C-alpha cells in the first residue's frame, strides 16, 4: 500500500469512525438509565440525514438554524419512543426485554415511512459555514477541514458527556444504570431521567444524521447499517462506556476502510465483524469496559 493511499484510507476510516462512535454514544445514553437499546436508532440517524436534505437543499435553511431544529425533532422522537416503547415495558417489569420487540416494531414503521417518502437521492449537502469537504494537502495526506472538525466535535462530545455524568442528575443516571432498585430507594426519579436520556439520545442521533450526510450516501439501507455498526462500536468499547464507544467507533471505521482497500469493497462489512469478534474474544467485557462482579 502506498503512503498516500494509506493516509487516505486512514482519514476515511477515522471520519466514518466518528459517525459510528457518535451513534454508539447515542445508544449508550439511552441504555444507561433503562438497560434497553433502541432498535430504531439507525432510523433516527437516517431521518436526521434525510431531513437535513430537506431543510438544507430543498428549503435552503442556513446550517446553524437547521441543526437545532433537527435535534429537537430527534429529541421529540426519542422521548416518544420512551413513552410508547420503553416506559410501559419497564413499568411492568424492570427486567423485561420486551423493548426489543417494541423498539424493533417502531424501527420497521419508521424505515417504511422514510423509504416511502424519500427516494435514494444522492445530493450534495451543504456543510457548516467556514468548513468544506474539499481536501487539503497535509504532507502525503488529503484531509478536508470538515473531517478535522468532525473528529474534534466527536471528542468534545465524549468529553462533555463525561462531565455531564458527574453532575447531580448524571450521578443519578449512573446509579440507575448500576442498581435500579437501590437508586429508587435514594429517591432517584427513574421515569423522568429515562425520558430525558432518550430525548438526548434522539437529539444526538439526529445530529449524527446531519453530520453524516456530507460524507455518506443517504440511502434507505443506511439506517440498518448504522444500527449494526453503532452497536458493534458500543460493544467493542463496553456497552455504556462512552470513551470506549469512541475507541470502538474509530476501530470499526478503520476496519471497514482498510478492509475495503485490502480485501475489496464487498468485504468491508466482513472486516468490521472480524475485528469485532477478535476483540470481544480477547476482552469479553469490551476494550474499556469493567468486569461485572456477581456475588453468588
Amino acid at each position: 500500500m502506498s503512503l498516500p493511499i494509506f493516509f487516505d484510507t486512514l482519514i476515511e476510516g477515522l471520519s466514518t469512525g466518528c459517525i459510528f462512535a457518535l451513534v454508539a454514544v447515542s445508544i449508550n445514553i439511552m441504555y444507561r438509565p433503562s438497560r434497553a437499546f433502541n432498535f430504531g436508532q439507525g432510523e433516527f440517524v437516517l431521518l436526521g440525514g434525510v431531513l437535513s436534505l430537506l431543510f438544507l437543499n430543498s428549503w435552503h435553511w442556513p446550517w446553524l438554524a437547521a441543526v437545532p431544529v433537527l435535534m429537537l425533532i430527534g429529541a421529540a422522537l426519542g422521548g416518544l419512543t420512551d413513552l410508547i416503547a420503553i416506559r410501559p415495558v419497564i413499568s411492568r417489569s424492570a427486567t423485561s426485554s420486551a423493548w426489543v420487540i417494541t423498539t424493533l416494531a417502531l424501527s420497521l414503521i419508521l424505515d417504511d415511512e422514510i423509504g416511502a417518502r424519500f427516494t435514494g437521492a444522492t445530493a450534495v449537502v451543504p456543510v457548516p459555514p467556514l468548513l468544506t469537504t474539499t481536501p487539503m494537502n497535509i504532507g502525503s495526506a488529503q484531509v478536508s477541514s470538515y473531517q478535522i472538525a468532525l473528529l474534534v466535535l466527536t471528542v468534545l462530545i465524549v468529553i462533555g458527556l463525561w462531565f455531564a455524568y458527574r453532575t447531580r442528575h448524571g450521578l443519578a443516571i449512573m446509579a440507575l444504570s448500576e442498581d435500579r432498585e437501590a437508586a429508587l430507594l435514594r429517591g432517584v426519579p427513574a421515569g423522568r431521567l429515562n425520558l430525558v436520556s432518550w430525548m438526548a439520545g434522539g437529539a444526538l442521533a439526529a445530529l449524527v444524521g446531519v453530520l453524516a450526510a456530507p460524507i455518506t450516501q443517504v440511502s434507505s439501507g443506511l439506517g440498518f447499517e448504522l444500527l449494526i455498526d453503532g452497536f458493534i462500536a458500543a460493544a467493542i468499547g463496553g456497552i455504556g462506556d462512552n470513551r470506549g464507544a469512541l475507541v470502538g467507533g474509530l476501530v470499526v471505521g478503520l476496519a471497514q476502510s482498510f478492509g475495503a482497500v485490502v480485501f475489496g469493497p464487498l468485504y468491508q462489512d466482513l472486516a468490521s465483524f472480524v475485528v469485532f469478534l477478535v476483540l470481544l474474544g480477547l476482552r469479553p467485557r469490551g476494550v474499556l469496559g469493567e468486569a461485572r462482579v456477581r456475588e453468588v
Partner: protein
Amino acid sequence: MTAAVGAIGESETMVDEQRILLDLNALHAGYGSAMVLHGIDMTVRSHEFVGLLGANGAGKSTLLRAISGIVQPRSGEILLDGQDIARAKPQAVVQAGIAQVAEGHRIFGKLTVEQNLRLGAYTRRLTTTELAHSVGLIWELFPQLAERPKSSAASLSGGQQQMLAIGQALMAAPKLLLLDEPSAGLAPVVIEQLAEGLRELRRGGLTILIVEQHIPLTLSLADRIYVMRNGKIVVDGIPSASCTDAMLQAAYI
C-alpha cells in the same frame, strides 16, 4: 417517672416522644398473586428505636419495601405523620422523610465514596456548601469513610460498605431510618462498631426501624420489638429477659 416532674419543655418533649410517626394499618402486600403481608398493624413513635424480628420468609423485607414504595400494597394504610403514603412512589417517600438502607449494603460500586453520599442527598437539592456540610456530618459519624472519599465504593470492605449505605440514607435527612438486616455478613467486631453508630444516631434523636435476624443486637438496641411470622405480627412488646424466649419461640419454632 421523670416526665411528671419538670418544666413545660420536658412535657412537650414527652408529648413529642409519644407522637406516632409511622402507622401501618391492615397492610396487605405481595408480589403478583402471592400475598406476603396479611394485615400488618404496626406503629413507630417519634424518637423510638423499633426492632422487627422474624425468620427468613416472614415478610420483613417486603414490609420495608412496601413502606418505601418499591412494592405497592394491595390494601391498607401507611401513615407518615398522619399522611397516607401507601400509594406513593419511591421518590415521594424519600421526600416525605423516610430513607431505607436495603439488604446487602447496596451502594454504587462504580461511584466513589463521596459520590455515593452526594447521591443520597439527591432529593434535597442542596447548594455546594450545604452538601459539603452534610457530607462532613457523615465523616464525623464514620471516620473510616472520611479517610477515603475518592475511593471507589466497590473497593471498601463489607463493614465500610454498610456504613456508606447508612451514610447515604442519612444524607436525605430522614425523619425515619429503615434498616434491613444491616448486620448480615459482618464480623462481630464490625457489628459492634455498627451498633455504636446506631446508638449515636439514636442519641441524636433519629427514629429508627430495624429489621434483623441478629436477635441479641436487636434486643440491645430497640425500645420495642415486633416479631413477624408468615406475614403477620405475632409478638409486640418491650425487650426484657422474660420476653426473649417467648419471642424466639413465636418467630422461629
